[in-house]
């Protein structure tokens, strides 16, 4: 699946998007945050406060307990500040 990062999450991770293949036991958005955080310091820094991070699956907002199976694109970003 494709993972996209925006704003300071993107800056901390150090890239705008990547393709990942998490293991089968990574079922939810929260699991994915935990798995990504274990991949290195940059990820751990980006996700150090998981409660602040917002997520979208296939371009629609989701909660941390949303199941990721079948997702084409998952995005992580800080709370939005548009308008």
């Amino acid at each position, binding site marked *: 699946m494709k993972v*996209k990062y*925006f*704003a*300071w999450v993107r800056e901390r991770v150090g890239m705008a998007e990547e393709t990942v293949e998490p293991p089968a036991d990574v079922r939810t958005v929260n699991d994915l945050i935990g798995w990504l955080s274990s991949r290195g310091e940059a990820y751990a820094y980006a996700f150090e406060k998981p409660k602040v991070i917002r997520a*979208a699956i296939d*371009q*629609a*907002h989701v909660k941390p307990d949303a199941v990721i199976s079948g997702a084409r694109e998952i*995005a992580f*970003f*800080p*709370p*939005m*500040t*548009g*308008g």
Partner: protein
Amino acid sequence: MSVTATIRIQEGDFDVAQEIAALTKGRTDIGAVVTFSGICRGSENGEPIAALTLEHYPGMAEAEIARHTDEALSRWPLQGLTVIHRFGRIAPGENIVLVITASPHRQAAFEAAEFLMDYLKTNAPFWKREESEKGTSWVEARDHDDAATARWTKP
């Protein structure tokens, strides 16, 4: 008659008068037009700002705004609806966002415009970064914006 919202996410500026005219030209059924323009302020908390840079999530920005224009069209008797949101670097005094609502009477137009702006602030995937003499920093989300959005949720 079904109403389709006009939604544009663009780097360039927009002309408010032209956008109103596009909604109302040749029509005699519209009684009220409300416009909200969001403009880049030149200072924040007393500190001067050189510019804002808006990052967005292409595709989701359009989709998320469309979900909320659909909801606005189902909740209020609107005859026209336009939402334009800019991205990229925006200098103080320049436009950031435009919402236009048209309806037979003012109340629906006012309420729908306010509803859309509250949702744009908290749900549309845009992020502002401020440039000042001290450097650049991401603008933090505000709790009162979340509270403003929450009041539109049906009980």
